[in-house]
């Protein structure tokens, strides 16, 4: 698990334990971003006037009901969507298109079904011209990290949903990105599997010290994972609360029974509820 092969002089020369504010890369800044789709009468604003500052190594959850613009906001960091106004930068560089410096994990299974687990994970390094040897050993390292060494030569369709998502995480990390972007990655999994995946994601993050933007509509998930939970509301999408999650780490699932956890959960819940009520009243006005 340890001793990651680092073929690029990327993050730090320290061990992968280097974490949180010791990490020097992955500073995400979102400034006055608005995103509007369509033209004329079909115009629809999905995100409005949003600003964010995410320090390197932070684990940030974006929480909100479906349709409120979470994916759109995340996609602007990924580079799939260009903001209508405002700017998104990482370490000061403006984002113009998708790139290997930002790893992406999707909700839908997005592995290449014609490639084996190993070929999927090696895809990034191969594409970036790292050479086959480096790509293979990098892939091996990350497959081991997500606990799927035995499945390296299987095709995605032979794996369960949770395993596929772990391969997805390994594949995203194999490019040593500065930021990991996750769009409801565990949304399609059953609750047992989801809990397991949350725990192992935290372990990986601890090892890696990478900035994570994690989109979810599940309050428990957001509070369990994040250093910070950004609550988003719809119509048009904006961040209505920025809640610091000061729960100790490492966290285990038992933490869900702690009073602090409950308190934070309720806080998120109240924020969302107040917004939903407002929206509901507006609709009926």
């Amino acid at each position: 698990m340890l001793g990651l092969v680092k073929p690029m002089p990327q993050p730090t020369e320290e061990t992968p334990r280097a974490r949180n504010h010791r990490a020097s890369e992955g500073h995400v800044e979102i400034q006055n971003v608005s995103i509007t789709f369509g033209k004329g009468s079909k115009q629809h604003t999905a995100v409005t006037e949003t600003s964010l500052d995410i320090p390197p190594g932070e684990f940030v959850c974006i929480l909100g009901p479906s349709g409120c613009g979470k994916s759109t906001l995340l996609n602007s960091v990924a580079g799939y969507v260009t903001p209508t106004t405002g700017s998104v930068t990482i370490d000061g560089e403006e984002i113009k298109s998708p790139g290997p410096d930002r790893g992406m994990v999707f909700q839908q299974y997005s592995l290449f079904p014609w490639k084996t687990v190993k070929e999927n994970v090696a895809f990034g390094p191969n594409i970036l011209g790292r050479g086959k040897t480096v790509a293979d050993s990098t892939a091996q390292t990350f497959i081991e990290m997500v606990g799927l060494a035995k499945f390296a030569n299987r095709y995605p369709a032979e794996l369960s949903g949770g395993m596929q998502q772990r391969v997805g995480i390994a594949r995203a990390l194999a490019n040593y990105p500065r930021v990991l972007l996750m769009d409801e990655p565990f949304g399609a999994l059953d609750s047992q599997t989801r809990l397991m995946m949350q725990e192992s994601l935290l372990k990986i993050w601890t090892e890696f010290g990478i900035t994570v933007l994690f989109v979810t509509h599940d309050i428990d998930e957001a509070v369990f994972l994040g250093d910070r939970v950004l609550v988003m509301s719809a119509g048009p999408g904006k961040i209505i609360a920025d809640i610091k999650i000061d729960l100790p780490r490492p966290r285990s699932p038992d933490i869900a029974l702690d009073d602090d956890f409950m308190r934070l959960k309720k806080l998120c819940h109240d924020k969302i509820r107040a917004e939903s009520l407002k929206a509901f009243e507006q609709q009926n006005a």
Partner: protein
Amino acid sequence: MAAQGAIIEMPKSGNLDPSQEARGDGEETTAQGLQPASAESSDHPGNTDQPAETAKSFQLANLLQSEHLVRWSIRIAALAVGVLAWHWATTANLNFYINFENVPEPLKVWNAFVAQISGTEFYIHILVSMQRIIIGYAFAVAIGIGLGLIMGRSKLANDILMPYIEILRPIPAVAWIPLAILMWPTEEASIIYITFLGALFPIILNTMHGVEQTPEVLIRAARSLGARQTQIFRHVVLPAALPSIATGLAVGMGVSWFSLLAGEIISGQYGIGYFTWNAYSLINYPDIVVGMLCIGLLGTGSTYAVRLATRPFLKWQEKAR
């Protein structure tokens, strides 16, 4: 093999379905019960997910084999019944709207067949036909896949070419014959041209659909991993289209036999289609049936050969089942 109406068979798209947004059911659709659902609930999935069902799968293999046997017996029996019915209809000189009086009996056909395969000319007919198929089909594969890929990727190319395809596609091979003879310098070239046309459209359309069906999320994933347009095309679009291309190739092979025969019946001095029609002119009725059955076998055989040839590229898809 169905005619051009059945061209667009959807590929069996394993877990290519991009619409698996729905929570909960994505798990089932993709994992397809290959792994026990509880496998995930352990901290060390590597140890528990192993399919530890060797004994069961052994029994299953036996069962499958015997089921295989039963099904093949049924198929052969069905054929035998058909031959018997044919024998009965011809010996009884059945003339009930359809007239069997001039239809040769199975035994006479068999004898004619044996006589043909002991000679050399029959083989020349077959070889000439196969050569035409190979040339016409090869052009159709190259041009069909090429155009299909371009049309699937570019709206402009699609808009330019689609009207031609829509107009030309329904024209049957027979209708092409007069013009083909006028257009091409040799009779041989016109027959090959007709063969080529038959295979072309199924291949173009299936390739195009395969390309269009590439799940958007896979293209996005490739882009975020650093792939450029050409790399996306090679590593994502092309493999995603392969199942559909393979279907197009198999259907195209069937249709090219179809068209070849039309061409050979009207013109030429060799070829299995010519052989069949010539037997009619010579009032050699058993040879008609020999020719027909030979065409059937060659058509089926070559379609099967195409399926075999494309199978290695679709290995990943078999695993999905």
